């Protein structure tokens, strides 16, 4: 017994001295030079993306037929996962192209030299990208490929206009009627959760009350029994009563309002024969435009294929299918949501999106997340 314990203690003590040994590696200082390939070019295009992105097999096959490049996907949970993966493999990137970083993560990737210039900015289609999509970032390191406003979605069966009326301010959600009936994906681990937190910063910075800020509201929400989940799926599918979650296994249904996209009710209707009892709360500044980007990874082995895929993703034939494939708006001018089964009809248009530039988001994010955590703990 003693021997076993000694062995165990030795193991732990050895590990415990680790902090005194200094760093294992000297991090390479990057001045955003183009890095050598992190893996061999075997003729394949490797795309780092998130689970949700659903480009159909026929779309991928079409790309392979057109260009001769095979495509392989490396998938993470969400936009945050893409950034984590790129940061972790910074000196030995495994993918050539990333698809899915949004405007709350992009600046971090840029400042860490994780992306390299694309020549797509010289493509004639580049000019067709809408101004809303180009607003957060319009440089050569990332190209927007889809977009959509993040906002609160609520259950119309609960907010019936008689017993419960539609909130006219975010403060309404701190009242007793909403006690324990709200669900928010954590901004620490969820991309829409992060976007919504950013929106609240702008919302409360511009409201009439100068004595309170966003984190006072988050604290009040936590005190009012708000449910915080790690991801969008848990908040929308497990807790929210207004969405498709009620038909899935594991549904709890204890929240009547949650964070999603303003087009989510449209998606609900599209898949349910033009029926939904979910709608969006589009109070000014409580919504925020999420723009998702594609970009060539610094350290990509197959830059040519990556360039070709950006071109393919931004082609009208493919980009116009974003509403069906990725449940988001296309970024090309002149394309929107389909009218089929009330997709467009039930997708609400924000009155006024929150507006914080991506440099501020990047500079303040750590501070905001810390404040959010202390407010909701």
């Amino acid at each position, binding site marked *: *017994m003693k*021997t*076993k*314990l000694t*062995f*165990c203690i030795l*193991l*732990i003590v050895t*590990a*415990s001295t*680790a*902090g*005194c*040994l*200094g760093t294992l*590696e000297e*991090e390479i200082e990057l001045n955003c030079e183009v890095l050598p390939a992190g*893996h*061999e070019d075997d003729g394949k295009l490797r795309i780092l993306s998130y689970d949700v992105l*659903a*480009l159909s*097999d026929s779309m991928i096959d079409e790309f392979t037929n057109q260009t001769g490049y095979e495509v392989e*996907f*490396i*998938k*993470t*949970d969400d936009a*945050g*996962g893409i950034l*984590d*993966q790129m*940061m*972790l*493999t910074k*000196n*030995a990137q*495994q993918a050539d192209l990333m698809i899915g970083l949004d405007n709350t993560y992009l600046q*971090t990737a840029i400042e*860490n030299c994780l992306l390299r210039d694309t020549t797509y900015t010289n493509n004639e289609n580049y000019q067709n990208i809408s101004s809303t999509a180009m607003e957060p970032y319009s440089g050569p390191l990332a190209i927007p490929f889809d977009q959509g406003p993040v906002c609160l979605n609520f259950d119309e069966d609960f907010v019936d206009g008689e017993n419960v009326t539609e909130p006219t301010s975010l403060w309404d959600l701190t009242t007793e009627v909403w006690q324990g009936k709200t669900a928010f994906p954590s901004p620490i*681990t969820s991309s829409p959760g992060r976007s919504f937190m950013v929106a609240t910063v702008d919302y409360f910075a511009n409201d009439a009350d100068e004595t309170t800020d966003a984190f006072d509201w988050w604290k009040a929400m936590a005190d009012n029994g708000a449910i915080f989940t790690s*991801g*969008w*799926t*848990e908040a929308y*599918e497990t807790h929210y009563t207004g969405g*498709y979650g009620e*038909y*899935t*296994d*594991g*549904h*709890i*249904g*204890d929240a009547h309002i949650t964070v999603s996209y303003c087009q989510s009710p449209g998606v*609900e209707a599209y*898949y*349910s024969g033009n*029926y939904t009892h979910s709608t969006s709360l589009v109070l000014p500044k409580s919504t925020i435009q999420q723009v998702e980007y594609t970009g060539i990874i610094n350290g990509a082995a197959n830059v040519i294929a990556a360039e070709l895929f950006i071109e393919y993703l931004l082609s009208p034939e493919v980009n116009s299918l974003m509403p069906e494939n990725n*449940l988001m708006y296309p970024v090309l001018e002149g394309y929107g949501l389909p009218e089929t089964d009330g997709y467009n009809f039930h997708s609400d248009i924000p009155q006024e999106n929150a507006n914080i530039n991506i440099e501020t988001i990047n500079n303040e994010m750590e501070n905001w997340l810390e404040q959010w955590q202390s407010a909701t*703990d």
Partner: protein
Amino acid sequence: MIVYSQWIVIIGFTLLTTLPLLYAILRLTSVTDLTIFQALTNFFADDDTISALKFTLLEATFSTAFTLLLGVPVAWYLGRYRWRRIRLLRALLSIPFVTPSIVVAMGFMMLIDPGGLLDSVGIDLRLETGIIGKLAALTGWSNPGHFIALIAAHVWFNLSLVMRFLEPTIATMDRTWEEQIRFLPAGRTGFGRVKHLWFPLLAPAALCASCLCFIFSFSSFALVKWLTPNQDNLETLMAKSGGSAGIYNYRIDTSEVVLSTSLVQLLILSVAIVLTARIQKKHSSIHSIVAENSHQNRDSVGNKFAIMTITSATCFALLPLALVGISSLRIRNPRTNDYYYSTEAWIEAWQGNYSATAIPEAMYNSLIYCIFTLIIALPLGYMISSAIARLEAENKPKTAQIVEFSSMIPLALSAVMIGLGILIGVLQLAPSMFSWMIIPAIPHIIITTPFVVRIMLPAIRSLEPEYQEQAALLGLSPLRTWWHSRIALLRAPMVVSGALTMAFSLGEFGASWILVRSGSWDSLSVLVDQLMGKPKFDPLIQPMAMAAATTLMILTFVLFLIAERFRNVDEGSGF
């Protein structure tokens, strides 16, 4: 020569086990600029980690207690009475233990679903209405339904452990002992017989099973992730932060959480492993005394209560699995919200539509990992077991104990930490290996080798040294001598451990979750999680996930049935 190679294997395996962990710890201490002691202090100062620790201890303790409470009667009746098709019955009752945790999670989600089987009898563990809601209101306990569902799933998962440890001792005990004790004053009452006969005989086996139940419940990942969405245990807490941990100047908070949490988990599980090793030794010696003096000595057919217990336990073992299969065929019509049965989801999942990996591709990846794991883990486990048996035979019990303990270290490690350590280690040492598809098999080798050792060791211990001498006398070559005097006699435990190694590798989720996501070789267990994580506006997504889970389940069962075919019914190894 053999001795040297055994030591090389032992040292190699110990390094393979500890290096990723040490590497991960070194990297995390470097990134966070914290010493181990500072990290531990931080752990106890953080509400989230403390809450996760409390929850982990609570769920592991309750899971262990209830597993024992339900497992002892099942083992008792199974060992005490004569049952027709006992092998099949035993196999059915043992299936949960080898069922991939992600499949178990899906099965229980179906079971507790509103409108599902439990809900229809008034037990709503998910929405927590009715009795469960009243319980919550009465006690102020938040989410009792989720907790109960988790405990039930852990009991389901670990029940066969109790059965495996207790049943052989109960079945092989000489009935005359019981008759004899009845004549003694201490054995005249039932309580007396329990106190003076059954308790001393069965307590080590029960304790041993309890320790293992505690370890598996403590490090449970997929079940906690899916069944208690509002609560983290240490493993899920680490997994949530694992993606961004170990990166310099980026999300240092997550590195701090992973570092401190993994250390606390390592400490607690190490104590549990040491206890298990001690108790298991005691159990083995008691079991061998019992088995030596007896034959299969079962009473005739079981009484009504015995039949009811075994039937209920078998139904309990099979129900969640049947539900997974059914759910892969049950599809919601989104326009009417009615359900219909169809193979649509199977077709879509098999073709890999919806941007998910196709089932055949994920199955191919899973099989490659498990075959590779088998090729490495089986010889590793055999050599380690041989070394332990040799050291014992050479009267070096201390050294044998150290080797045995080192072979069990993986049970004390978090799969997430192993995955993270390998990820960071490979990236640092040889980034080109990163695109090597076999990388995800490394944690599988680490995790499955202890099981090979647990199965092989009792069998190797029972080999008579005379066999080898006799084979040598026949003038056989050294290789043929080794083959005929050892390997031929170890065929059954080798098949059992091989099949179980493959089954565990197929179902492994935690480390794969970290590692596979760094490549593009989704295994079946990762595919199930990926599909379940997708937005399910389209009603086909969830049945597709269930189709992948069913495929994984069927593969595991086939391997398990092969293992059962070769298992020695009276061995008390527990696996």
